[in-house]
């Protein structure tokens, strides 16, 4: 994927970093994503996929955190 068009975190290929643009979530899910460090402007990198492709482990602000696909799809990113 060489495009820099906005997509969701769950669609980023392994090793391709992206910058968080916005969150498509409200309430407790939004709170959870924010508290994991997914604030607009944050650079994130997918580093591992589980065999089934769900969850995916991301490097977020110095910690490795697994997100479920449904969570990953709520984070809009621009690939870097």
């Amino acid at each position, binding site marked *: 994927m060489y495009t820099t068009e906005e997509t969701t975190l769950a669609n980023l290929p392994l090793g391709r970093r992206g910058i968080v643009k916005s969150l498509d979530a409200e309430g407790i899910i939004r*709170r959870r994503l924010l*508290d*994991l460090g997914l604030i607009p402007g944050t650079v994130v990198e997918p580093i591992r996929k589980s065999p089934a492709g769900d969850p995916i482990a991301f490097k*977020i*602000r*110095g910690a*490795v955190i697994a997100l479920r696909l449904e969570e990953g799809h709520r984070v809009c990113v621009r690939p870097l």
Partner: protein
Amino acid sequence: MGLTYQRSAKRVLRANFVNSPASDYIVALAGNPNTGKSTVFNALTGLKQHTGNWPGKTVIQAYGNYRYKGKMITLVDLPGTYSLFTNSPEEEVARDFICFGEPDVTIVVVDATCLERNLNFVLQVMEITPKTIMCLNLIDEARRRNIHIDYKKLQDKLGVPVIPTAARNGEGLNQLKDTVNRLASGLICPNPRQLRYEDSIEKTIEELAAELIPTLQDRINKRWIALRLIEGDYSVIASIKKYLGSSTFKEEFEYGTDTPRMGCFK
């Protein structure tokens, strides 16, 4: 009379969490996953709570004792979480202990190699209790990576003590123990920086907090409880009922089910 009541009420509340009547101080260890909480716990208590190089090791809380300058201190090792507000079982354990267990001190263990990501949790704890110490752990690893932290300045900005440590080799732990005793005995009184919300929220906090005084008196942070009520955080309300008695909150405090949770975080 007032004092005696406060003291015994506190003991009753605590008995929900830690059965350690002989201890002088109860101290909680909280923080993000994998920051070295269990390593600090083991180093101070001499116990062997399991540690591991991956997050999520500690699920149930463990407790153990140590002595320092004639005092018996009970240390409670809490599960690591990134938040106190998204209601996973680990978060509820940590949140309820810090809030309703009324520890004499809460040590937030942070990873000095990724300080920024840890500060969010530190602020969440400082919002619950001023009796907070930041344990700036893995300072050896930070040094190795050429990360320099001006912890004096950090301490000034946060308003709580910041103690650099490398728990795995014991560095800084004496200073940590000393600071725990001084804070628990009232020799130092931190003044943590508080988040301010928009005016309309601040106004509601004030009103609710005032209404909470008759029930909570000077126990439990009324500003924090008011914030949770504004959010309509049912999990916290359930904990309030559990630990403070169901009569504490009348139905009117429970807010309608149509109130969206976390309304103010939209």
